[in-house]
């Protein structure tokens, strides 16, 4: 449908106002909310994600596109609920204790939301206790941890250990990422997946949920 292609195209350009107007028009035309979400908004976000992976666009373009997606999603939410459309999965996300960096985490959130995942963003400087409490409250399939500093990355192990101590480690997959993180570090702390960038993290989350 042309209107869904337009939604996708305007989203890729970060035109929030136009995306919002078109989403409203699509709703008014009786197009199913699920189709507007998947074939319009998520389609546009996935295209931007691919371009980001190929270095054709950069972080600012992704943020602007995500802002446009949020504008459209806000209109769609009540219609999705009425239609019984559920998120692909649920992720609890945060930057670990002692670390205030949030750009990488925010990108991961946007990319994951672009894949239809519901993301509970706990913010920055998040303690292991808060991650455990969030898992107990929200029952996610994935806990995603971010750290930018070598001085804070060990906190990821603290979170993994806290999930184990709370008896809920087996209920979630733990993903980790950030500038100093490596696959070997991931293995050494008992996390389930390391990804090197936000686009890979969103793909990885889908892979873990659908496995």
């Amino acid at each position, binding site marked *: 449908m042309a209107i869904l292609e337009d939604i996708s195209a305007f989203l890729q350009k*970060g035109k929030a106002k136009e995306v919002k107007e078109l989403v409203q028009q699509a709703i008014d035309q009786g197009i199913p909310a699920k189709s507007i979400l998947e074939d319009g908004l998520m389609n546009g976000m996935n295209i931007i994600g691919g371009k980001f992976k190929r270095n054709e666009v*950069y*972080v*600012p*373009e992704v*943020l602007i596109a995500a802002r446009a997606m949020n504008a459209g999603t806000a209109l769609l939410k009540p219609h999705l609920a009425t239609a019984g459309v559920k998120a692909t999965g649920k992720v609890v996300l945060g930057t670990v204790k002692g670390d205030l960096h949030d750009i990488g985490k925010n990108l991961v959130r946007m990319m994951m939301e672009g894949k239809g995942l519901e993301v509970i963003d706990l913010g920055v400087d998040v303690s292991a206790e808060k991650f455990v409490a969030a898992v107990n409250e929200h029952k996610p399939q994935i806990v995603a941890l971010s750290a930018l500093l070598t001085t804070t990355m060990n906190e990821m192990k603290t979170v993994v250990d806290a999930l184990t101590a709370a008896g809920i480690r087996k209920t979630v997959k733990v993903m980790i990422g950030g500038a100093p993180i490596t696959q070997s*570090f991931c293995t050494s702390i008992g996390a389930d997946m390391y990804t090197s960038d936000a686009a890979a993290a969103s793909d990885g989350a889908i892979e873990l949920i659908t496995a």
Partner: protein
Amino acid sequence: MDRSFYLNLAATGKRLPVATHLVLHEKKDPEAILLDGKRLADAMVETARKFDSPLALPIMDLTLEKDIMLRTMGIPAADIPTYHFHAKPDPKLVAKVAAMDVLASPRIKANCESLTHIAKAMAAGNKEVPIGMSIGPFSLMTKLMKDPITPIFMAGSGVAPEDDDDVDLLASLLDLCEKTVHACCLAQMKAGAKAIFLCEPAANLVYFSPNQIKDGATVYQDFVIAPNLRLKALFNANKVDLIFHDCGSLTTEMIASFAALDPVIISFGSPVKLWEAEPFVPKTTVLYGNLPTKKFYSDEEVPLSGIPDMVCEIEDKLKASGHPFIIGSECDVLSMPGYEKTIMEKVMAFTSCGCKH
């Protein structure tokens, strides 16, 4: 210092890490030392001597400037690390920042005292040169907004401050940050710094889209380079040298813009290949860096045995270019609990290994 000091240092072929954090954390009370100018000076000098360097480098802690700025504005200490502005600050508070005494910060006071100790020792014949440290105005601004990237992009799309609150806020905060960085640098200059390591780690591809710059947007010049040029004028007026550092991913245009600040040393992180940056930097500026020290903790990513090859690659390619260079770290080499020995071994390896080629 005379520029030839840095060029001659490069010509000696010395390899120098930014490693005071590593040495400091070998002590039993590093937190106490950070508040004690004399002991901090001792740690800086000890680090310089450990690596046979004349540069007494400080800790690269880029949180101090935000801390003193917000304390001056009356923000509670506990809120400072995560504090973001959502509206333009009151002009009275801006005036307070412009007139603030940065030595009210115990950490900045200790840093300045350490510089004075080293400067006095230098005047008495010691070879160590006191080097200051500061975050740059742009990078400081990015710590004050929840989302600085969107207004930067909007400004680059032609949205003026008067047309958008966030673009207006960004411009206003950048001005506040420039005042803060001027005050912090000036205090270090008065304390005896002969050069200052000015860090703009946020001036990179995360915050700026090269697509937008290619299309003619001047945001990079307006938000990064212009404030730093004004800061450079302060350095020049006080006869203090600029060591410029950015460890982010950069385009060659960004590198050339930094080089136009005419630093005595320019330091990049491992995302930049020094030999590719070299054509965009004048040979009067020493290239510094940029072994992947952030991953030195990992034997899989950076095995000890692989370090000589990394050193040789940089040395060979830069020697061929004829550009003065110093092999070093990509940032402050941070001490990491549980990995101290591994990291120090690799630092010692890169500073001492021979090049077979």
